[in-house]
C-alpha cells in the first residue's frame, strides 16, 4: 500500500523517478507530456520490431522451425514484448499520477493568484473611494468602481433618509435619481431591512419582495447589498448585469466585501459633512456676535 502521509514534493519526485524523468528539478506538465510521448514512441517502435520478428518466424518454412531452440526463441521474443508492454504501462501509471499532482499544483497556484488579484482590486477600489470626502464624488466613485469590479452595466446607490431609501446616484438609469421608497419595499427595501445581500436571477418574486415595481427595460440579473457601518445602515448598493450575463453567488460575495469599504467611506463623508455644517454654524454665530 502506498504511504498516504508522504509529502507532496516527495511523491512527485518518486513518481518522476519511476516515470523516467531523472532531471525533474522544475516539475511541469509539459515535461511529463514530452516524456509520455517519448515513452510510447519507443514502446511502439520496440513492439513493431518484436512483431516483425514474430512475422519473420511465421514465414520461415515449417521444416526449419522444427530446428532445436527455435520455439524457445519465439517464446523469449513474445515474452519480451509482453514484458515491454507491462514496463510501459507501469511508467504510464506513474506519469498519470504526476499529471494529476501537477494539475493540482496548478489549481492551487491559480487559486492563490486569483485571490491575490481580488485583494489587489479591492485595495485599489478602497484607495480610490477613500480619496474622496465630498459625498457626490464619493457616491459616483463607489458606483463606477463597483461596476468595473463586477463588469456591471449600471446600478444605483440608495441612502437612508429617516424611514425611506433615496436613490442618490445612478448609472444607466439617470431618471432613477431622487426616487424614494420606504424601507421594506421592493428588493432594495428588503435588503435594507434584512441586511442580507440578495442575488436576483430572472424575475424577482413579488411575494418575497412586497411593493416591488417591475422596471423597464427588464434586468435579467441583479445584485443588492446593504451598506452597513458599525451596525448602522447607510444605504443599499444595487448593480445590474449586462444582457446575456448572470451574476453568481461568487460575484455577490465580492460585492458584499466591496460594500463594507463603501459603507465606511459613506459614514466618513457623512461625518465630514456634519463637521463642515457644524463649523459653518459656529463661524456664522461668531460673525453675528461680532456684528452685534
Amino acid at each position, binding site marked *: 500500500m*502506498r504511504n498516504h502521509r508522504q509529502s507532496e514534493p516527495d511523491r512527485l519526485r518518486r513518481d518522476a523517478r519511476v516515470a523516467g524523468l531523472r532531471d525533474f528539478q522544475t516539475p511541469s506538465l509539459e515535461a511529463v507530456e514530452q516524456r509520455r510521448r517519448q515513452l510510447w514512441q519507443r514502446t511502439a517502435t520496440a513492439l513493431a520490431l518484436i512483431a516483425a520478428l514474430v512475422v519473420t518466424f511465421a514465414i520461415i518454412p515449417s521444416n526449419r522451425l522444427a530446428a532445436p531452440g527455435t520455439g524457445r526463441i519465439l517464446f523469449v521474443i513474445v515474452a519480451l514484448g509482453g514484458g515491454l508492454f507491462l514496463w510501459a504501462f507501469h511508467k504510464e501509471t506513474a506519469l498519470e499520477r504526476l499529471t494529476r499532482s501537477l494539475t493540482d499544483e496548478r489549481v492551487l497556484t491559480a*487559486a492563490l493568484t486569483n485571490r491575490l488579484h481580488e485583494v489587489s482590486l479591492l485595495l485599489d477600489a478602497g484607495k480610490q473611494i477613500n480619496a474622496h470626502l465630498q459625498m457626490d464624488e464619493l457616491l459616483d466613485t463607489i458606483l463606477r468602481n463597483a461596476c468595473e469590479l463586477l463588469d456591471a452595466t449600471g446600478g444605483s446607490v440608495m441612502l437612508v433618509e429617516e424611514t425611506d431609501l433615496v436613490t442618490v446616484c445612478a448609472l444607466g438609469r439617470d431618471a432613477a435619481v431622487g426616487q424614494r421608497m420606504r424601507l421594506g419595499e421592493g428588493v432594495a427595501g428588503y435588503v435594507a431591512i434584512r441586511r442580507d445581500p440578495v442575488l436576483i436571477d430572472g424575475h424577482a418574486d413579488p411575494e418575497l419582495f412586497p411593493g416591488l415595481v417591475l422596471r423597464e427595460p427588464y434586468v435579467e440579473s441583479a445584485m443588492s447589498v446593504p451598506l452597513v457601518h458599525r451596525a448602522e445602515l447607510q444605504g443599499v448598493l444595487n448593480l445590474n448585469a449586462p444582457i446575456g450575463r448572470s451574476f453568481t453567488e461568487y460575484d455577490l460575495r465580492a460585492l458584499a466585501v466591496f460594500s463594507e469599504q463603501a459603507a465606511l467611506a459613506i459614514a466618513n463623508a457623512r461625518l465630514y459633512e456634519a463637521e463642515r455644517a457644524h463649523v459653518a454654524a459656529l463661524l456664522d454665530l461668531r460673525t453675528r456676535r461680532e456684528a452685534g
Partner: protein
Amino acid sequence: MVAHRPRVLIAEDDPDTLVILRVNLNAAGIEPMLAGDGHTALERIQAESPDAVLLDVLLPGIDGWQVLEELHATGNRVPVIMCSGKNNVHDLQRARELGAVAYLVKPFDIDRLIEVTSEVVGLRTTDVAAEPGTAADTELA
C-alpha cells in the same frame, strides 16, 4: 501492491480551504483532486471520473449550482456533496432536486466532512443521519 484509493474532486476557490481539505482527505485514505473554478471542476469530472465531488457553491466563472445543473443535465451520476455558507430550506431543496447526495453548511467540522465523504465513496458504512430540525449537515439521498 498499490491499493485503490477513492478519488474525490474538491471544487473550492479558497486556497486555504483547498490545502486543508487536501491534507485531511489524504490522511483519511482518499486521493484528493483539486479544482479552483467551475470550468476546471467540470473538465476534471468529465476527464478523470472521480468517485465523488465536494462542490462549493461560491466558485468563479460558473458557480457550484451551475456545475451541479450541468452534471444533472448531462446525466453524470458522480455523487456530489454540496458545500455552502447558506443554511436555508430553499437551497437544500434545490440541491436535492439537482441530485446532490449531501449538503454541508460552512464553516463545517472537518471530521464530519471526512465522515460524510468517506461514506459517500464507500470507505465507511456508518449512517450519515440528518440533524433534526436543521438543513445543515444533511444527507439528501
